[in-house]
């Protein structure tokens, strides 16, 4: 594999004037020919579908479905991969459209190019594969507009989910309230007058029914329990507010009555407008929330004016719960660092800090240039990357920082951020830096993460209560190292294949920026010496003023010739700041955490001290008697209590839990026998009836649970006979 060739640098000893690229970029010369994460498909929202999926992955998924893995599928595979390359080239040239449409266009082009007629083999193959596409959506390339498109897509998907949930709840309430009013109306005079009955029959009424007579009949039969007027008024008001809500569109284009207002827009390009709209809409939010709560209470028949009226009168903005706010749309504010006023960025932080339902996108195009909130004077490249880190300090806001190149890998975080019921900040680097036109935005945005200039991370307050749960750095390469290392294969001046590991540092990232070319100087091969060391090594040296060594970066020129470029202190200082920031992030992520390292060191020292202080002494004391050797304590054995049987004192009794409520005994004498709260019989008053009644009830009891006991009145006639009959039940 040839990545570059070492040849004498023609521009050595002169200021670097040709566009430079780090040597590791050599293999990504022509992205249009490489399968990579772009074009990206903004997937149509469906159950279980991701927000984003690279075209190459979708093609792979499709091929698994349609092309046999053996040689018989090879022809189809080649055709589909060729089609993928065509789409990739078109998208990189600026075309955009739905995947299925781009597929059809590209397929037609291939068929025509092959000289085949439509419905020929190639056409059929590609059409078969198209029908098996598991996903569809807008296909986008990687450029300056990518972060905005991706975030708007994710936000729209979230709003669509919210709208579905909202409509389900609100429509359910509307239906239920309408039912209540309808059933009340059905008891009214209007519903039963002759005209209403005739209208209900419709045009099929042929005069055979006398509706006035029918109306009289129904009038006599209908229930009188109408709803109180205040309840009807309350329900009607709630119903009207629910029906006319301005937060979400009806969901179906034709479902638009004259009473409907145009729904509010929630997409803003500055924070001031978003905050103003939030304030202006608060009265509507309050009225809607109250109406919804009233509706829910009315639905359950739980509204009590004496209890609830005062509460609703006092209900104000501060009473709105996150759950109630979360039901309504959240605002989207798209800001662009460098273009947006610093004050707007600062204001967005205020909005985030307030916990308002707001999703803020800060798109960054230039990591090294002027930045908000304060343009850097002596520390270029330090401000922008801190925007997201600063937002983590707000604690209640979801924060995601990543680059265009890593967006699809952060799909899960993107979805979590959209699901988060609170403020969210998405800080995305597009890679479309104006001062680096020679490097594709995809490469540059990937390089920003590699160079630790714009690390990917997520701070999700909903993920748990501690930093370990909330903060995640997993999206970064070779996380345990200062700089990620990659193998570079190249051909030396003798034509030999060479290989070496190169660390990708902040200096490699900066070197492409024309504004900083003046801080670099080319070094001719003849001048290479032991004193020249890679920037990564130079930064590892403890001395900041290492005069002896010259830090360099391996670069290539447009002809892929590799040479070295020495970098000035301006760049190495920035690289030190960059790695310092990265190490702080690592600490937050629990890697090389200084508190832990210090505590471990102290603990080790303490253990070592303890080990030294404990002198080994022989013990002559007999071992402590083990618990087992002690005489077992006498454990009092508790004899099992005999089962409690009903003690017969001669009084009649009933096995109440077994009573089947057959009414037989209570019909005999309802003063003697009665039902308890569970509608099961017991002896209410043994003296309220005769012994004969008790015995007969015992005989009649279907489940034989009445026990007559002994007669209480010795003067009752025929006692001997009754006692004999009762014996079977005692």
């Amino acid at each position, binding site marked *: 594999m040839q990545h570059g060739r070492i040849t004498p640098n023609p521009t050595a000893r002169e200021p670097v004037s040709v566009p430079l690229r780090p040597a590791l970029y050599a293999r990504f010369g022509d992205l249009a020919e490489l399968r990579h994460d772009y074009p990206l498909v903004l997937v149509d929202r469906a159950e279980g579908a991701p927000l984003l999926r690279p075209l190459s992955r979708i093609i792979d998924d499709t091929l698994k479905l349609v092309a046999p893995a053996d040689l018989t599928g090879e022809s189809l595979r080649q055709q589909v991969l060729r089609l993928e390359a065509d789409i990739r080239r078109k998208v990189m040239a600026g075309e955009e459209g739905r995947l299925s449409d781009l597929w059809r266009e590209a397929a037609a082009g291939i068929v025509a190019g092959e000289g085949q007629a439509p419905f020929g083999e190639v056409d059929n193959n590609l059409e078969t594969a198209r029908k098996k596409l598991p996903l569809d959506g807008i296909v986008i390339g990687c450029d300056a507009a990518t972060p905005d498109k991706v975030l708007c897509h994710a936000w729209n998907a979230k709003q669509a989910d919210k709208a579905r949930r909202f409509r389900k709840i609100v429509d359910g309430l509307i239906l239920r309230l309408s039912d209540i009013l309808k059933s009340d109306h059905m008891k009214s005079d209007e519903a039963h007058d002759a005209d209403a009955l005739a209208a209900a029959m419709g045009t099929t009424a042929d005069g055979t029914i006398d509706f006035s007579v029918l109306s009289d009949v129904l009038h006599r039969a209908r229930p009188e329990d109408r709803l109180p007027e205040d309840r009807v008024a309350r329900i009607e008001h709630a119903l009207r507010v629910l029906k006319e809500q301005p937060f979400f569109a009806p969901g179906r284009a034709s479902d638009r009555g004259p009473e409907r207002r145009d729904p509010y827009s929630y997409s803003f390009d500055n924070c001031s407008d978003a905050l103003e709209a939030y304030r202006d809409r608060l009265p509507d939010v309050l009225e809607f929330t109250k109406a919804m709560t009233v509706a829910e209470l009315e639905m359950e028949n*739980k509204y009590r004016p004496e209890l*609830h009226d005062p509460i609703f009168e006092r209900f104000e903005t501060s009473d709105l719960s996150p*759950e109630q706010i979360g039901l309504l749309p959240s605002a989207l504010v798209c800001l662009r660092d460098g273009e947006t006023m610093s004050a707007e960025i600062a204001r967005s932080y205020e909005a985030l800090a307030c916990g308002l339902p707001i999703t803020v996108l800060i798109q960054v195009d230039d990591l090294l240039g002027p930045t908000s909130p304060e343009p850097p004077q002596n520390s270029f490249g330090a401000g922008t990357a801190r925007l997201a880190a600063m937002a983590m300090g707000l604690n209640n806001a979801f924060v995601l920082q990543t680059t265009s190149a890593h967006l699809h890998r952060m799909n899960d975080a993107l979805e979590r951020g959209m699901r988060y019921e609170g403020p969210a900040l998405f800080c995305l680097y597009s890679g479309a830096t104006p001062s680096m036109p020679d490097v594709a935005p995809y490469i540059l945005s990937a390089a920003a993460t590699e160079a630790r200039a714009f690390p990917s991370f997520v701070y999700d307050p909903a993920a748990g209560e501690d930093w370990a749960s909330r903060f995640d750095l997993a999206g970064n390469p070779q996380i345990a190292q200062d700089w990620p290392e990659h193998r570079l294969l190249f051909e030396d001046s003798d034509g030999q294949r060479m290989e070496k590991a190169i660390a990708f540092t902040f200096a490699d990232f900066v070197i492409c920026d024309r504004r900083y070319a003046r801080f670099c100087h080319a070094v001719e091969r003849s001048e290479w010496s032991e004193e020249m060391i890679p920037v990564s090594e130079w930064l590892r040296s403890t001395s900041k003023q290492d005069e002896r060594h010259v830090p360099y970066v391996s670069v290539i020129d447009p002809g892929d010739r590799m040479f070295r470029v020495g970098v000035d202190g301006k760049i190495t200082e920035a690289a030190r700041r960059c790695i310092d920031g990265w190490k702080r992030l690592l600490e937050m992520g629990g890697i090389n955490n200084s508190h832990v390292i210090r505590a471990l060191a102290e603990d080790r020292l303490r253990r070592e001290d303890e080990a030294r202080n404990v002198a080994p002494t022989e013990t002559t004391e007999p071992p402590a008697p083990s618990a087992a050797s002690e005489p077992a304590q006498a454990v009092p054995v508790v004899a099992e209590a005999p089962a409690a049987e009903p003690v017969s004192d001669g009084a009649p009794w009933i096995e109440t839990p*077994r*009573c089947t409520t*057959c009414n*037989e005994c209570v019909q005999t004498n309802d003063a003697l026998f009665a039902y308890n709260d569970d509608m099961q019989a017991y002896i209410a008053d043994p003296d309220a009836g005769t012994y004969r009644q008790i015995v007969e009830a015992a005989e009649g009891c279907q489940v034989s649970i009445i026990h007559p006991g002994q007669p209480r009145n010795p003067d009752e006639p025929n006692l001997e006979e009754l006692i004999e009959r009762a014996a079977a039940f005692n």
Partner: protein
Amino acid sequence: MTASMSQSLAQMVQTDYEIGDYQSSIAPRWCTGCGDTAILTAMQRLCRDEQLPPEKTVCVSGIGCASRLPHYMNAYGFHGIHGRALPIAEGIKIRRPDMSVFVTTGDGDCCSIGAAHWLHAVRYNMNMTMLLHDNNVYGLTKKQASPTSPKGLSTNTTPTGASLNPLNPLTVTLGIANVSFVAQVVDWIPELLYEVLQKAYHHKGFSFIRILQRCPNFMDHHFDAWMQDPARTRILTHGDGLRLRPEMSRVYKNQETHDPRDMARALALAAMPDEVPVGILYSNPDVPCYDELRAGERPSTPALVETVLNEEFDKVGIWPAEEEA
């Protein structure tokens, strides 16, 4: 309710329904000693203990002695036509999922004329409780053989004795696809009747309870053998099923720990010839419910129905020429 605020405000309104709140003004007109009264009492106890608002409770029935039950409950009731209680109950449940739906039916109503609905109700597995009052006879019409009448039973329609083996509602129900809850209980052990009913009510899905029920007029002493000999009643206990009190355990010593998820054992228990299994034979709350599967994304409000219909009509609409412009 969707919002915690509504829940808090609703909790301010305390309900204290008593058993009398579920008793209608009509006194039960079942024969003295009829097992249906025990079932009615168990239902009213359940409603009280669960504090089910009467206006959120509905009892649906078909025709027969058992089907008189809705008259005696102070709740919504629907005394339907013979064998058709289940389709009506399904309609209620799908339109009003917030209602607690109970279906009371007899062995003739369910296992004969309503058999088709019974099979499909089990398969639909909608969230409701069905009580099959099985007295082995048509009682309301003065003793005709029902599908569960024992072979040889002499009735008005079988004067020389029923010639077929009886149908076993338990094995039938257990054999239907999507079955999710099958229990058996007897009306003469009210404590277990109540507990099984409570378990069935809390089960998510279609709960089928077969209740062996005494008919003192036309099947007098029919269940005496089981009533008088507790050893012939096998109580099915389990951590997820019934748990007997010690007092009950002393009387009903014939017990078996039965896992309600064990279908093979449930079928074997259901088919026992001499003993009556009492308890939960099968319970699987993971079976999908038709009412949940079919719950639309949006409730069908009149406005939505009209909108959708208009959209469909517009697809094939032919407009008068003058309106085209």
